[in-house]
């Protein structure tokens, strides 16, 4: 029975990400690789919605915050999924093949199998092994407390007793997303975090890596696959310390910090590569996605917001020097406004 729930949770999460992602894909009139783009953009939108819906509830509601959040977040997901389905209805009725297998050379097909095998290995290892990360004591307990006490970030995870709002962590709502999915599918939140979330987050991260490889090696499918395979290897053997993103990726896959280092930051780089492909026009859709990424980074931690904004400002300035275009840089830097508001909120509420 639990296996059925896990499968249902994974399929539903992917479906929701896809449907939500169809909205930006359709509005930006992306003509190719719609499924992969939709999944990535959908995840960004999911995290951004989590923050937009969740932060006011966390700050304003001392009691009953969790069930209000569940209701509000469900409505938000339904609205944006419906909008995605409406605007992307042509893609749903006539979907493109997720992998254009027939167009690949034999060499590419072999690399694809190796790549899928590497990803499958990491997902399987999440089931075979468990990691004793001390921060789970905070994040998983906080998620479970939200469900059990209907209170958000107002119970001390050490003792289980009421306390004042833990503003240091309260704006980073990734554990509450896990609590939400756990409630919807009736899976214990620790099980969801340790075993279910990696099934989605690990392949999603590699999908993003593959999308980046498409910009690094345009039209060279073999090199794109080799790049992604070697990133796989780098992550599995990148345990040079407990501090690298590679270590966080496989040791703490389900934590917001890992999402920050292995999805948010690479996604910002990806968006910049997309934006500066065509130097003549500024894509409003990509700018909005960049702003959504800044909001989404808040789901990980306040430091992730600062890192995201810092990276955006740095890349914007460097590209403006390269292309001698200040306007684009200013628009990109303006995407950090949600991050500035987040930090102000953090400071004021503290």
């Amino acid at each position: 029975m639990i296996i059925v729930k896990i499968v249902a949770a994974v399929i539903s999460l992917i479906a929701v990400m896809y449907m939500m992602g169809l909205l930006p894909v359709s509005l930006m009139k992306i003509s190719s690789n719609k499924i992969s783009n939709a999944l990535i953009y959908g995840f960004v939108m999911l995290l951004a919605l989590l923050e937009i819906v969740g932060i006011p509830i966390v700050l304003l509601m001392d009691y009953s915050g969790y069930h209000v959040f569940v209701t509000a977040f469900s409505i938000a997901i339904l609205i944006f999924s419906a909008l995605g389905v409406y605007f992307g209805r042509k893609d749903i009725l006539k979907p493109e093949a997720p992998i254009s297998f027939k167009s690949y050379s034999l060499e590419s097909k072999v690399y694809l199998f190796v790549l899928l095998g590497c990803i499958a290995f990491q997902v399987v290892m999440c089931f075979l092994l468990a990691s004793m990360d001390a921060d789970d004591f905070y994040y998983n307990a906080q998620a479970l407390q939200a469900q059990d006490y209907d209170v958000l970030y107002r119970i001390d995870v050490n003792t289980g007793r009421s306390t004042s709002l833990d503003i240091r962590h309260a704006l980073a709502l990734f554990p509450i997303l896990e609590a939400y999915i756990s409630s919807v599918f009736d899976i214990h939140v620790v099980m969801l975090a340790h075993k279910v979330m990696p099934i989605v987050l690990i392949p999603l991260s590699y999908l993003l890596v593959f999308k980046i490889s498409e910009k690094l090696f345009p039209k060279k499918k073999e090199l794109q696959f080799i790049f992604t395979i070697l990133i796989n290897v780098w992550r599995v053997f990148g345990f040079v310390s407990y501090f690298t993103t590679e270590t966080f990726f496989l040791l703490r896959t389900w934590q917001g910090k890992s999402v920050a280092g292995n999805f948010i930051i690479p996604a910002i780089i990806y968006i910049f590569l997309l934006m500066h492909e065509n130097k003549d026009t500024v894509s409003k859709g990509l700018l909005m996605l960049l702003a959504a990424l800044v909001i989404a980074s808040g789901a990980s931690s306040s430091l992730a917001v600062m890192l995201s904004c810092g990276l955006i400002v740095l890349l914007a300035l460097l590209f403006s020097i390269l292309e001698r275009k200040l306007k684009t840089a200013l628009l990109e830097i303006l995407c950090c406004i949600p991050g500035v508001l987040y930090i102000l909120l953090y400071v004021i509420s503290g």
Partner: protein
Amino acid sequence: MGGYFLDALRAIKNFTGLKPLFGIAVIAWFYLFFREKNKSLRVVFVAMPLIMMLIFICPLTMWAFDKAGLDLDTYYRMLWIVPIGMMSVYTIVKLIGKNFKTRIAGLVLTTALIVFSGQYIYNSPIFFESENLYGIPQQTIDVVDYIRSQDSHEIINICPSADLITTIRQYDSKMRMPYGRDMFNASLNYYHPMYEVFEQTPRLNFNDLVKTGREFEVEYYIVYSARLLDDSPEDAGLMFIGEVKDHLIYKDPVISKQIELLEEYY
């Protein structure tokens, strides 16, 4: 300021482990600095990493980080902005991508290079064999389930042994404890009399434990069976209610009675 600079260097040393894998990244950067022609990629893989590293080691940055009230133990996360892995792998793939033979040979050799330069993460001592779908030790689940089978109250006050502290409230948040994981974080310098009596004495004295525990309304004590004891728990007034996976579980009937009286009153 000099202190901040040295701390930043120390953070880089801890981050990279000074392992050969970091050397690959440095070599890759230099290659791209001299040979990368794509201007966008020069921004992402050459200029941005260089500026980021300079910002990182600049004492003013760490000073500002500290003054902003941020935890200096997390300063290293600024290095996450530098795409070390992607930069290194991109350089290697550029070099090996010419034809089928170089691709195959390069893929195999690069894999071997990364394997021998890095460290296999699944050998980390933090990983252990997963005993269940929760990903937490089975002993935690068994202990909590056993106590729940003996007590129908919704909220239960327990004092578990140190090996269970970090996982009990992940499994059951309605188990309350006098202290948690933060007690083991030396940098926080917390004090709790229960912790002092329960964990910081060479031999556990149940009379002191129960006397202190009653101040904090602890009803159940979970003692690791190998713990050295100074006296008998029964002499201190505790009832033995079971042993679960090398953990002895005791109940304080005085606290149980208090709970019953409170329930009658309310």
